[in-house]
């Protein structure tokens, strides 16, 4: 029982990332009708916002320490960071320690800007083109973005630790009445899960309870009619592209402590996230979230030794099998609108 519960928890944190990326993909598809294969790259760029902020925080001036020699036998260069000089050693060290959560302040404006530029500069030229063209151009863009990141940061993962207060794990099982050490769960994964729920809730609240959100939802349902009412729906959809980019970005920034950022991490999530969107229902925001968590949990269970011993390799294909099943029996997905993908 405890092993099963642990797999559910694992599925939830993995599903959190799927859900956040799929949510952004669905927002873009639902508003602009664009299949955005560069969305994984936006997740990756978000993660690198945390890396960049960490680098900025660690910038400083160098002094030579003659008591410690480097690998060539020369005096070692010791870096004193500017923020420690400006704010004092304690606050400076705390800022560095809390880089990942603080990076959200950088990630949101950067990603909104990137999303805006991407949409105005490239994507808008492909609105009336076939989906195949959109996939080709956005996939190409994703490759360009990841190669740019690789050129600056290299190919290897870059450690981006969680704040010290959230490092390590806690005994989740004891909270539920299990014996000690039955369910050990990392603090940061729990933080990520809660964070994803907050972001998902915020996006839904924004769409549900603001005038802007109402117009966007109306535009998603019938773009032409909203336009005839004299509302500039295109401008709002552009901002939604920025919002979707920001959701992917913050998802990536907070993911760094779970898996060290590398230039390829967006591609690793991209295909799975598209499967999530298809399973959830193209254009359905609740469907994307539901499918994200469901597929995360299913994938976790498929990785259990007991399951793999019956069906070797099932962990590698389970999500795709589900996608095939859904497409054959219910092409509009779990919560998709009737008619979408069914014509």
């Amino acid at each position, binding site marked *: 029982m*405890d*092993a099963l519960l*642990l*797999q559910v928890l*694992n*599925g939830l*944190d*993995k599903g959190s990332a799927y859900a956040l990326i799929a949510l952004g993909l669905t927002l873009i598809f639902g508003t602009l009708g664009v299949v955005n294969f560069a969305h994984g790259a936006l997740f990756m760029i978000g993660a690198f916002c945390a890396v960049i902020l960490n680098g900025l925080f660690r910038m400083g001036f160098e002094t030579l320490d003659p008591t*410690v020699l*480097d*690998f*060539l036998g020369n005096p*070692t260069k010791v870096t004193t960071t500017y923020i420690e000089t400006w704010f004092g050693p304690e606050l400076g060290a705390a800022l560095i320690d809390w880089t990942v959560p603080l990076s959200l302040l950088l990630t949101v404006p950067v990603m909104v800007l990137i999303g805006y530029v991407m949409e105005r500069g490239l994507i808008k030229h492909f609105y009336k083109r076939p989906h195949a063209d959109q996939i080709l151009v956005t996939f190409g863009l994703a490759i360009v973005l990841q*190669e740019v990141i*690789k050129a600056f940061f*290299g*190919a*290897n*993962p*870059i*450690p981006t*630790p969680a704040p010290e207060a959230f490092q*390590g*794990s806690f005994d989740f099982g004891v909270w539920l009445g299990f014996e000690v*050490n039955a369910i*050990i*769960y*990392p603090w*940061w*994964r729990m933080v990520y899960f809660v964070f994803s729920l907050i972001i998902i809730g915020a996006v839904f609240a924004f769409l549900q309870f603001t005038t802007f959100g109402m117009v966007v939802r109306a535009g998603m349902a019938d773009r032409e009619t909203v336009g005839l009412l004299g509302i500039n729906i295109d401008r709002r959809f552009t901002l939604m592209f920025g919002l979707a980019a920001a959701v992917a970005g913050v998802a990536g920034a907070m993911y760094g402590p*779970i*898996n*060290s950022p*590398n230039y*390829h*991490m967006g591609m*690793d*999530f991209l295909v799975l996230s598209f499967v999530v969107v298809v399973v959830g229902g193209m254009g359905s925001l609740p469907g994307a979230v539901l499918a994200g968590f469901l597929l995360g949990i299913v*994938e*976790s269970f498929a*990785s*259990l*030794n007991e399951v*793999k011993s019956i069906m*070797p390799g099932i*962990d*590698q294909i389970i999500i795709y099998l589900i996608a095939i099943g859904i497409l054959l029996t219910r092409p509009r997905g779990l919560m998709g609108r009737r008619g979408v993908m069914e014509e």
Partner: protein
Amino acid sequence: MPLSGPYADEGADQLRAYELVVEHLNGQGDGGMIGTFSSKTLDGTGILGKKVAFVSGDTQTKADAARATAKSMIEKDGAIMITGGSSSSEAVAVQGLCQEAGIIFMAGLTHANDTTGKDRKANGFRHFFNCYMSAAALAPVLEKQYGKERRAYHLTADYNWGWSQQLAISQATEAMGWATVENVLTPLASTDFSAYIAPVLNSGADVLFLNHYGGNMVNSLTAAVQFGLRDKQVNGKQMEIVVPLYSELMAQGAGENIRGILGSSNWSWQLQDAGTQAFVKSFGTKYGFPPSQAAHTCYAQALLYADAANRAGTFNPCAIVEALEGYAFDGLGNGPTVYRADDHQCFKDVLVMRGKEAPANKFDVLELVEVTPVAQVTYAPDHPQFAGGELGTCNPGA
């Protein structure tokens, strides 16, 4: 070498090493390990009096791309020796091509047993160590550190190298009395290993082997540490994690998680022998950081080829094969080394390394635990882990 793909940083370091060794062969720079090499045929005038030139290509960490790149170099650029690669699949693919084309292949970073086992070729040579050697070097250290009665759990990358590494480690540890509880194959494309780590907690195992390399290693190790495996007591013993093959470039990616974790290496810039010192000085002065083991093995391979050609007095591949087979040398950073004639595998000491507890800088991630003597990692050419292959006869090419 891979200049794109997951091993691009290894590839970039290899390229630096090749640029450096070509400079040294042509008489530029400080000469690096030419000065410490036991053979004295190299004098900075190139090879057989000819200036050394090279072309490089991106193998993308893919076997088919590596083969296509090497083919282009042979057919269009007129390459007479191919060297490099950062994975065993690349090495096996290019080695096969070089055998067909009558070109010498001096393998770069390749650790699977098959490269000098079932896929060995007369025209191919490997300086880097292999899975068997890693296991043979690690097992006694593990016994010394963690005791005789241990229960091991393996997470293994689901491809040729992973299977090879897992088999070697489980055979070596079972021979000293450890039990193998489980071997779980993980997809090469996995990024989040939490679902594979969770079952370890309730398996009764007290040692976890991560038969992963590169990004897989970084991610699986990070997940294992996050789930508190290193703080866990099982069977009255401290739970331990072992990474059989270390890459110092990848270890940097794992950050603090690598601390205290045992693994093996082919070479380390921290060694104190004259060859290592000369190479580190040369490389560090030119590039500003210490070389990786990937850079070292590539530099050594280029020197060994150049020396073999000089000793043979010709560029004829078969004469070079003859010059390298059974060749014993020293001064290239690994101590006395022999290129065994039976399988074209180099035999030399192997290093057991541990993640450093208090690194002084970002390069100082691993510390030397033991230099395992070559005798301990030597095996018979027909050892079952290397069975099924034949060198065949040398192909002199056109």
